[in-house]
């Protein structure tokens, strides 16, 4: 029996469940990867690359969610809010590349902190 290609089973719901259904859509991940080219475009992407990203994105979402939850708990809330996510990003160096995503619409408290941090003393 011919073995299915890398994606055919996944998109159809499972090559006997080897890969299992993916929590994130591989085709969409590929499109985002394609968009990321600044000068030279990403021309060819191996079949495994979006699979790797699907997993990496899970880790990423989990880490930020956990850190955001700490913020929410400190405010004695059980609902995770956008400000909790913003606070978690600001508090963690590795997420510096995301600061611009949250700083333009952050709450005044967070914006103030960011402004203070960038002020010359």
């Amino acid at each position, binding site marked *: 029996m011919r073995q299915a290609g890398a994606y055919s089973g996944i998109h159809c719901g499972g090559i006997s469940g080897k890969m299992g259904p993916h929590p*994130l859509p591989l085709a*969409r991940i590929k499109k985002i990867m394609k968009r990321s080219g600044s000068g030279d475009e990403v021309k060819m992407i191996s*079949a495994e690359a979006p*699979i790797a990203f699907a997993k990496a*994105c899970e880790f*990423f979402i989990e880490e930020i969610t956990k850190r955001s939850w700490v913020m929410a708990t400190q405010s004695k809330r059980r609902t995770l*809010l956008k400000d909790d996510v913003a606070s978690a990003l600001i508090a963690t160096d590795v*997420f510096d590349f995301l600061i611009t995503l949250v700083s333009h619409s952050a709450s005044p408290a967070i914006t103030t902190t960011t402004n203070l941090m960038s002020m010359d003393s």
Partner: protein
Amino acid sequence: MEGSEKAGGSWSSSSSCWAWTNNNNNGSSSSEVDQMLLPIANVGRIMKQILPENAKVSKEAKETMQECVSEFISFVTGEASDKCRKERRKTLNADDICSALTKLGFDDYALPLHTYLHRDRLHFTFDP
């Protein structure tokens, strides 16, 4: 469906690679301005799975997370793509992503990811 024309190109695949062909090179269209996001339902599900059962997640928080994930993919892909270019390789592969993750400070992800990928490669190769 008009999607591929709007995007300015199309995908084609061989057994191991996907290749993108541009229809034109001007690169500017409304679809480029729209940010490409992963579905909010999928993102929200992953968030809820890691939280306690009584936890709730606001819609805004999920939307923010969607944007962060897209930015993450772009950021890491850019780094991986640079590596391919320097090494004169045309195809970006999973190992490039693992290296990029380590280089950008996400080394906590790189080892579990590597393990996950190799376990699955094994299934493809040896499962009858």
